[in-house]
């Protein structure tokens, strides 16, 4: 088929297409739309991490859970609580200060529970317990929880009419100051051997509960052994419980567990040996349960 370039209709079409091509090139490459009013969901991942940290720090100061939820919602994460927990674990692995990690874990926990929990403040740990307690069954959390609220992208919870303009001069602080609270020590109330082939060998599981038997998130635990130590925080795996933390023990190694917050000290912890149905031995796990009196 021969194309007749003198065909007026073809000429018009080609010229028009050339114009469109030039227009697209101009609008996409030479002078693309410049965004100046972006929303937080478009932020780079590292800035999203910073945004979450600031939300957690703000929440730690204000305890305004609805607003923290709204702010987290602005990031449009598919799993906001999971993102917070994952970021807390990344921060822990990167050696960031424990307080920052704890804020993240606390916010994740409170968002999951739908209520603001009382924070645990660090206190010197108490006398070593030193006695092995009898095995007691794990007390399950029986509190009713609110259904997880949806994360909506609303920003300001409420506004109040603007009151008389105040000058931008330093003014005395008029806010409430944190009231020191006495933190009750976490006591070891249960130590169970766990022989379960589905679990990782040598798994040390820790569950911490407050005086009301609610799992306590953001509690700092230190595991020590002759060659080193490891820091844990409860609540970094909210899918396993807000007061849950775990650690992998090695065979023939003796560990000590110290609850830094409202402390308790449990020495001489080691992975037990278990037998499978065929009589073969394998490294079992331990479940330690701590509770405030």
């Amino acid at each position, binding site marked *: 088929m021969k194309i007749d370039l003198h065909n007026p209709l073809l*000429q*018009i079409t080609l*010229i*028009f*297409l*050339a*114009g*469109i*091509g*030039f*227009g*697209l*090139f*101009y*609008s*996409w490459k030479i002078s*693309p*739309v410049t*965004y*100046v*009013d*972006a*929303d*937080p969901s*478009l*932020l*780079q*991942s590292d*800035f999203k991490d*910073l*945004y979450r940290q*600031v*939300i957690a*720090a*703000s929440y*730690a*100061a*204000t305890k305004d859970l609805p607003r923290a939820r709204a*702010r987290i919602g*602005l990031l449009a994460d598919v799993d906001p609580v999971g993102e917070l927990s994952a970021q807390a674990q990344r921060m822990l692995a990167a050696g960031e200060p424990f307080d920052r990690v704890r804020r993240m874990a606390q916010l994740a926990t409170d968002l999951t529970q739908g209520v603001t929990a009382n924070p645990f403040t660090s206190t010197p740990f108490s006398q070593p317990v030193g006695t092995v307690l009898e095995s007691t069954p794990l007390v399950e959390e029986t509190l009713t929880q609110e259904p997880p609220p949806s994360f909506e992208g609303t*920003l*300001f919870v*409420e*506004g*109040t*009419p*603007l*009151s008389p*303009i*105040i000058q*931008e*001069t*330093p*003014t005395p*602080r*008029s*806010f409430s100051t944190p009231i020191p609270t006495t933190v009750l020590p976490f006591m070891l109330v249960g130590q169970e051997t766990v022989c379960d082939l589905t679990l990782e060998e040598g798994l040390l599981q820790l569950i911490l509960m407050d005086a009301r038997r609610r799992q306590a998130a953001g509690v700092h635990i230190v595991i020590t052994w002759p060659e080193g130590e490891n820091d844990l925080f409860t609540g970094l795996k909210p899918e396993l419980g807000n007061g849950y933390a775990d650690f992998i023990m090695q065979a023939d190694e003796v560990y000590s567990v110290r609850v830094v917050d409202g402390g308790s000290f449990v020495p001489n912890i080691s992975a037990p040996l278990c037998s499978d149905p065929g009589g073969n031995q394998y490294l079992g796990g331990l479940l330690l349960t701590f509770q405030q009196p």
Partner: protein
Amino acid sequence: MFTSKRIRLRIIFVLGVVAGILYGWVVDPVEYTDVTPGILREDYRADYVLMVAEAYHGDYDTNAAARRLAVLGSASPADTLSATLEYARGNKFSQQEISMLQELFSAMQAYQPGEGISP
């Protein structure tokens, strides 16, 4: 006759350009997905600054506050706070929120990079 044809073709070309630009700017503009906080919409910027002020009210860590404000652009933290205070007053922020912004504003005015944690 020849001239009118050229004019007509030019008009068609211009129409094509206009159509292309409209498509590229309005219908299907370039989408950015990894933006910096510097181009956040004004209300989001203000809320971010408010969060920094709330956090500062909890820990009085001027270095952390300055670092968090620095991501908003090249303006100094005090200038950022000043602009946010203006926005807050015009947008029915609560008195407590404005006070927290003022508190951080005062701290940022006196802030010297590298100083320790303020009481």
